[in-house]
């Protein structure tokens, strides 16, 4: 095995050198507890506040509107459960979302359903988009919250967040968005986008795993997530993960700089992968629309091939990807995202997601394009349902 091509950046990314270097002092010399009054503690506290400014600046928010969390999933849980609890007291018991959210949102909504909430799952179209019109038509005087992802994690489709936000703002309904996949790939401005709450994660943008943030617009009420300390303005107690917070600050500053200029070459590589595979491999299809799509996301379904076998074969060749097949989802059903865009089970089982980034080279793309068709031919040759 020669080459190693990591094409699963939507799952996680490496910690960049600059992020790592910015973190080291807060693990070694400035290791003080940010709540302590002596200098190594104060240094840590200052570093947290600098990181908070960077996170805020990256999405057009104020530093006081940013709370550090343990991950994107925690941010989603916090935003949705807090809002649900607060608004239930006002007789609002309905949450509007889509049928292809991340499980961090879907399972949180399922939890609230058991506590008397009605969950409206807006269907996405066959290209993987929901419209502001759908949201508008679904809102009632019982609606407590609209929660819709900024960009889908499997098929990369970018939702009309600004329009959805405007509809919610006009109706006086709170709007939360899971922007874990979007941050660093799409220009986000919480004010212009009419976003009340936004979840983001560090490890998708070259910060370490175990750090996330939640933006909550000034004036939107928030219930304490962890009681027990004055950290995060009493909202989330517990000694801060200082080094990772600093890492997130560095990462988000880099990830949101010149986004379009950085995305253009990634998009070109993505399109070369998509176009070449669609042109050379028979009986396959691109999942999710092409235009409003994350620059690094490729998601293709191959008929008569099962996704896990495909991933294992690619892994043998040094390529890391992911799939929406049941066998890789840990359940018996294929990906709910692929089902949501109307794929039949048998096609959904054969999906391959490749998520490339700025580290992906032209040679990596060549290698992907050399290996994927080979693997498909091998697997189809042993597939009883392939009659090509």
């Amino acid at each position, binding site marked *: 095995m020669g080459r190693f091509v990591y094409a699963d950046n939507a799952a996680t990314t490496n910690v960049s050198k600059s992020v790592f270097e910015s973190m080291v002092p807060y693990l070694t010399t400035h290791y003080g507890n940010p709540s302590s009054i002596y200098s190594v503690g104060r240094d840590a506290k200052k570093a947290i506040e600098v990181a908070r400014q960077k996170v805020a600046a990256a999405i057009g928010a104020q530093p006081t509107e940013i709370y550090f969390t343990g991950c994107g999933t925690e941010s989603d849980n916090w935003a949705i459960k807090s809002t649900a609890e607060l608004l239930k007291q006002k007789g609002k018991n309905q949450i509007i979302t889509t049928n292809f959210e991340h499980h961090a949102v879907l399972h949180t909504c399922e939890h609230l359903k058991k506590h008397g909430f009605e969950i409206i799952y807006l269907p996405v179209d066959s290209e993987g988009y929901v419209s502001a019109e759908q949201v508008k038509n679904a809102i009632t005087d019982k609606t407590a919250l609209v929660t819709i992802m900024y960009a889908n994690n499997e098929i990369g489709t970018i939702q009309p967040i600004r329009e959805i936000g405007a509809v919610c703002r006009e109706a006086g309904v709170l709007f939360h968005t899971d922007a874990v996949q979007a941050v660093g790939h799409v220009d986000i401005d919480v004010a212009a986008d009419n976003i009340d709450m936004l979840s983001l994660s560090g490890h998708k943008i070259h910060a370490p795993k175990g750090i996330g943030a939640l933006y909550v617009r000034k004036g939107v009420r928030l219930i304490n997530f962890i009681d027990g300390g004055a950290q995060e303005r009493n909202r989330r107690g517990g000694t801060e993960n200082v080094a990772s917070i600093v890492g997130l600050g560095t990462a988000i500053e880099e990830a949101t700089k010149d986004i379009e200029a950085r995305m253009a070459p990634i998009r070109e590589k993505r399109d070369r992968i998509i176009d070449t595979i669609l042109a050379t491999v028979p009986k396959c299809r691109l999942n999710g629309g092409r235009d409003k799509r994350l620059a690094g996301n490729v998601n293709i379904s191959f008929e*008569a*091939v*099962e*996704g*896990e*076998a495909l991933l*294992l074969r690619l892994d*043998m060749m040094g390529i890391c990807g992911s799939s929406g*097949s*049941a*066998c*890789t989802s*840990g359940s*018996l*059903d*294929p990906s709910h995202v692929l089902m949501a865009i109307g794929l*039949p*089970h*048998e096609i959904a*089982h054969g999906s391959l997601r490749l998520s490339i980034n700025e580290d992906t080279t032209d040679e990596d793309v060549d290698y992907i394009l050399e290996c994927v068709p080979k693997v498909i031919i091998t697997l189809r*040759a*042993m*597939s*009883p*349902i*392939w009659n090509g």
Partner: protein
Amino acid sequence: MLYSDKVMDHFANPRNVGEIPDADGVGEVGNAKCGDIMKMYLKIEDGIIKDVKFKTFGCGAAIATSSIATEMIKGKPIEEALKLTNKAVIEALDGLPPAKIHCSVLAEQAIKAAFADYYTKKGIDPTPFVGTVACDGDCHACGAH
């Protein structure tokens, strides 16, 4: 998903892949909706499995269980081949992850389905030999159950 070296070996280098055009028995189990289909071809002479081939649409474990199952029955008398259990397949592969046990069941059933076809073609009721061959129905992805 952690697979044993044995599973990975049979997945990477599957034995007896293909079809037998003049097979004496052909069996197919599973369905595309569930994400795995196994098809087994048997060539039988004088009560001995002279040749066996398979084709599988499915995950790593589905391919590995099909592959090792063909090895375990090739050259064996019918009576012995019919005794192949999914447990024996799992043991031969040095274990399977819990979520993949059904693949070993499919392998056992695919062979039984091929024998059922063999007996049926000869005008013999296969039930006393192979029992009823059916999907074990533990998979809710398929509306057929």
